[in-house]
């Protein structure tokens, strides 16, 4: 073993001049009401809660808290819009409205990106290059389906369901709203959407876009609030369909609540994805893939590659390269274009992550964090990895939803397939090898809904997304993403 490995000291001479995105062009109100029936309506309780910037803990705006009365209003507005307008207008016109939304998001992309980073803590590079363009692309893709549904399901006479209740998570706020709203509208349903309480702003800005696009009143309603607001949507008698993205725990509560009601559901839940590196992989490329797999969006990704499996023969070199690369990751101001890892979305989530760091060490795993500096204010977590872990460790079995990687090794294909599939989840997996036939063998053995070959965390509106096992059911994206919003 070569003792003298050249170690680059990234802390010296590598300081990048700040390149902070300006916030001067964005428009935020001090207070946001509920968007119901095409109008902004005050919450019946009169209650508002603050949404804060997790990078500096400052208040960005006050957000209305919708209770079950407000949800009822929203569902009524959606039902009325469904009965009187949306189910009646020609599909082609429906599509044109959705195209308008896509275009308006593109036009306002910069504003959306900045607000997304302010409200959620994600690096501006990600909001700008991933979240917002993909959200627009999603509307653009589904807009075109609106008048072509008969071709997607030949001889089956696809029909809309009615009112869709949709609940989105805080990790990709606008993108998840797009994943939910675009297919629902294209298939002729009307929508009541509740964004996550820590990241409501871009959904509310989307409401403004929807107004500007001239969508008929009540076709899309946006109600803000926390778990109780979501529960009111799930339990409302006049909702035909529930689409939820979030934790497996809440997914099960929803599934239990709608048992016996004939409400259709799509659940996109947690994950603990295996990212598998074979010795014949292009290792530098694979290391980039590991980094992208677990540190993208602070690890707040349901399909994050949080379990790394490295073939034993290349373990030492991969670990060294990985640690070196971790040192070069810039943690800090989400609005800075140099930033790789932004702020943890909320105080609560930071507590969850820190809890798991303790659990990991307690269980005997060895923790390594990069030597980066982190800001004094706000919620931060250094990129972290654990070695010396076993299959039964909680940090290997449970979803942490943070920048925390657990590393294991393997020798044979059979061994890694067994280990990778040994989880109640089944959302995604990644495989790194230079051999196409090996890649195809692996992708067919892994029990997960999305498999990435020599890449990770790639998304596309044409590509169906969703899980096996306890990662949920139903697909979002692509032709398959239409089906959960239709009956035949």
């Amino acid at each position: 073993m070569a003792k003298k490995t050249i170690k680059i000291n990234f802390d010296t001479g590598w300081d990048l001049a700040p390149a902070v995105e300006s916030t001067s062009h964005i428009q935020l109100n001090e207070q946001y009401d509920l968007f119901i029936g095409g109008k902004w309506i005050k919450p019946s309780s009169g209650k508002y809660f603050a949404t804060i910037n997790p990078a500096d803990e400052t208040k960005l705006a006050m957000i209305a808290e919708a209770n079950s009365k407000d949800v009822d209003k929203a569902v009524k507005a959606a039902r009325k819009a469904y009965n009187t307008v949306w189910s009646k207008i020609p599909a082609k016109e429906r599509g044109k409205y959705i195209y308008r939304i896509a275009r308006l998001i593109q036009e306002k992309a910069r504003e959306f990106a900045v607000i997304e980073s302010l409200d959620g803590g994600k690096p501006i590079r990600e909001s700008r290059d991933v979240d917002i363009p993909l959200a627009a692309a999603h509307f653009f893709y589904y807009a075109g389906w609106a008048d072509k549904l008969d071709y997607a399901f030949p001889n089956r006479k696809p029909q809309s369901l009615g009112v869709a209740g949709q609940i989105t998570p805080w990790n990709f706020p606008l993108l998840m709203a797009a994943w939910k709203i675009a297919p629902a509208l294209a298939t002729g349903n009307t929508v009541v959407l509740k964004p996550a309480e820590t990241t409501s702003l871009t959904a509310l800005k989307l409401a403004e876009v929807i107004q500007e696009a001239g969508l008929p009143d009540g076709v899309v309603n946006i109600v803000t609030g926390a778990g109780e607001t979501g529960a009111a949507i799930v339990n409302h008698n006049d909702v035909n369909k529930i689409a939820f993205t979030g934790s497996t725990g809440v997914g099960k509560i929803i599934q239990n609540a709608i048992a016996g009601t004939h409400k259709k559901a799509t659940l996109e839940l947690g994950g603990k994805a295996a990212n598998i590196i074979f010795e014949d992989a292009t290792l530098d490329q694979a290391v980039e893939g590991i980094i992208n797999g677990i540190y993208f969006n602070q690890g707040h990704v349901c399909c994050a590659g949080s379990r790394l499996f490295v073939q034993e023969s290349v373990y030492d070199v991969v670990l060294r390269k990985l640690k070196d690369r971790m040192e070069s990751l810039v943690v800090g101001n989400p609005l800075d274009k140099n930033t790789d890892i932004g702020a943890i979305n909320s105080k609560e989530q930071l507590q969850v992550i820190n809890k798991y760091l303790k659990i990991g060490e307690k269980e005997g795993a060895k923790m390594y964090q990069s030597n980066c500096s982190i800001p004094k204010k706000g919620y931060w977590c250094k990129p972290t990895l654990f070695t010396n872990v076993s299959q039964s460790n909680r940090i290997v079995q449970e979803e942490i939803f943070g920048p925390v990687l657990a590393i294991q090794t393997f020798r044979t294909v059979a061994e890694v397939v067994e280990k990778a599939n040994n989880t109640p989840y089944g959302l995604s997996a990644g495989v790194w090898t230079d051999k196409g036939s090996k890649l195809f063998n692996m992708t067919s053995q892994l029990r997960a809904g999305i498999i990435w070959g020599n890449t990770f965390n790639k998304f596309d509106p044409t590509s169906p997304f969703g899980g096996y096992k306890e990662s949920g059911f139903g697909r979002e994206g692509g032709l398959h993403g239409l089906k959960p919003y239709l009956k035949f």
Partner: protein
Amino acid sequence: MARVEVLKTYKIYIGGKFPRTESGRFYSPKIGGKSLGNICLSSRKDFKNAVVAARSAFGSWSNATAYNRTQVLYRIAEMLEGRKAQFIEEIILQGSSKSEANKEVEASIDRIIYYAGWCDKYGQLFSSVNPVASSHFNFTVPEPTGVVSIFAPEENSLVGLVSTIIPVIASGNTCVVLASEKMPLCAITFAEVINSSDVPSGVVNILTGKRSELLENMASHMDVNAFLYTGKNKKEMLSVEKLAVDNLKRVRLKNLTNVYSPDHETPYYIEDFLEMKTTWHPIEKIGAEGSGY
């Protein structure tokens, strides 16, 4: 002296074997006041054993080629055709007229042939190649969900049974079936057909007994991935849906009355127990801009 007829002992079918229930219990369903025999009253332990068998069969059955599954299903139909007379006799014992019995057996054979033909075709129907905006070959293919618990219909004990089992296993799922409680005879004889049809051990497991005793375990077992319910008992359906939540089983509720209708011959019954897998395969563009990610 007239020859003494040899009577048949009806046993359950687990992992390619015909054991008695481990509980040693039995029940005697009666049709028109006449007992059909001493039928195994399967226990929860029998069910658990059956799940172990079904899980261990899943790997090889789901990996079998579609052409192979087509032929195995076709073979089931061949075997059933050869034993027509025995099934007709049993269905008559269970209270049907001769012509009804004949119709039921023929419909069952034809239904198996129908689904046999789908094994190597549904994949093309439900899959897609997705035109992503990056340098990847991106495609979505269906895969079987896993181990499926089945409540077979109470009526039409043969064609109902066939209509639930065959579409489930056509795609590579394995199953544990609870046969009709009051008409269990041909379920067990059908197990004999399965057993002599090149269907690997454990792919189909058939129990007899009571829904009321087995519902809880069949719906809550953590190594079962889906539940196919037939019938219209609202209380049962609600229990199944609630118990299925713990590991997010895919629950399908079906009403198989009017079982002869062509509506029950559809690839969407296969689709009910499929998961869609999307794969991003890299495309190397030598000399082109950017890398795979």
